[in-house]
Each structure stands twice: as C-alpha cells, then as structure tokens.
C-alpha cells in the first residue's frame, strides 16, 4: 500500500495528534491489538525523544507509516538538528535492583526490544535526522 505521512508540531502535546494519525492507519489496515500497542509506543518514544533532545530543531517532525505484507515500516524525520544515533544511547540496567537502577534510556531501550530493526541516518547538508523501524505483525 502507499505510505501515509503527516507533519506534527515539535511539542509533547502533539502526541495526541500523532496517536490519532496512527489509529486511522491501524484501523484501516486491520492491524492486531498487540502490534498496534507496539506501534503507538515506538512512535511515542521516538517522537518525544526528538522533541526533548534535538536542540534547535525545526517546527515540525514528519511521521510516515506503511504496511507491506506482514510488516509495518515507520519513519520519523527531524530537520535542522544535531546528529544523535539512538544506537549509542545508554542501555538501562534492566536486571538490576531498584537501588542500582537509574531513570533514563528506558524509552529507546523499549523501542529496540520491540522492533525487528532500527536504522538511523543523518544528512549533514540539511541537518536531517531520519529514524526508520520495522515491526512484524504479531498476529
């Protein structure tokens, strides 16, 4: 099918609009509940990470989503930002006890655990960060 794409304000409060966009896609593609949960979580974590950490970014973040057979492809693009490869983010000590645990890094960790693959690229000429993930349908 054709990919669907939308631009969203670079604000945490825009996440409701992102969810509405994802819900339309999920309903139209008859995607199972578990995969839909994963899609929501993955996009929220990547989107909020861009809003919080991509200093000096543009006004909009573009989200694109497409289903191809039993896989969902998601892409987020943020322009006019510094490079940040999510693969280099700290990994939380998920097996540690509460005294040793530190907050932070959990969102990207969940993303990495829930998708099949995560690709990052950065174009220096227009300072564009692009993150692409693929998720196989659960059912």
């Amino acid at each position, binding site marked *: 099918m054709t990919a669907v794409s939308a631009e969203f304000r670079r604000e*945490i409060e825009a996440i*409701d609009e992102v969810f509405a966009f994802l819900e339309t896609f999920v309903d139209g593609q008859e995607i199972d509940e578990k995969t839909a*949960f994963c899609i929501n979580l993955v996009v*929220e974590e990547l989107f909020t990470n861009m809003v919080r950490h991509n200093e000096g970014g543009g006004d909009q973040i573009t989200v694109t989503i497409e289903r191809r057979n039993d896989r969902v492809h998601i892409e987020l693009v943020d322009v006019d930002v510094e490079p940040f490869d999510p693969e280099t983010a700290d990994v939380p000590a*998920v097996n540690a006890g*509460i005294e040793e*645990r530190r907050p932070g890094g959990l969102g990207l960790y969940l993303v990495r655990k829930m998708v099949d693959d995560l690709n990052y690229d950065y174009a220096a000429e227009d300072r564009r960060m692009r993150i692409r993930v693929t998720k196989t349908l659960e059912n």
Partner: protein
Amino acid sequence: MFEIKRDENGTISLHGRLDASQVDSARAVFNRVTESCEVDFADLSYISSAGLGLLFSTQKKLVDGGGGLTLVNLSPHIREIFQIAGFDNIFEIA
C-alpha cells in the same frame, strides 16, 4: 484521554492512556503518595516510558521508607512492557 483517581482506601486507579502528554497529571497524584498503596491498572489501556518513569520514582521513594506499590489488573500488553523493562523485579505485581 487519561484519568487518575484515588479512593478512600488510598488505592490509585488509572484510566485511559498514560503517555508523555498526560504524565504531569499523574505525577500530581503520585507525588502525594507517602506510604504503600495499590495501583489498579484495570482501565489503563496504554503506558509508555513516561509513565514507567513516574512509577519507578514513586517506588524508589516508597522502598527507601520500607514500603512499595502493589500493581494490580495489568493487561497482557502492559505486563509485557513491565517485563521487558525489568520492572517485574522492582514492583509487586498481583
């Protein structure tokens, strides 16, 4: 859409979706928790790392004082998120 309520027994009930845009309203309630209590997830359909972080900081505060949160009625999807995050070792999940 997210709602949080606390009843006369101290049980906290979460309703709807606890995402990054809603976590401040939940924080206002959890910041007032000073002793062990139950958190009912029966009507919570979604949680992300923003909500997990809030639960973690609340739990850390309570454990330091010898208490803790007991989480009940987690949906299978939310329970799986807790397992991936290693939170099933940090919280009592009934």
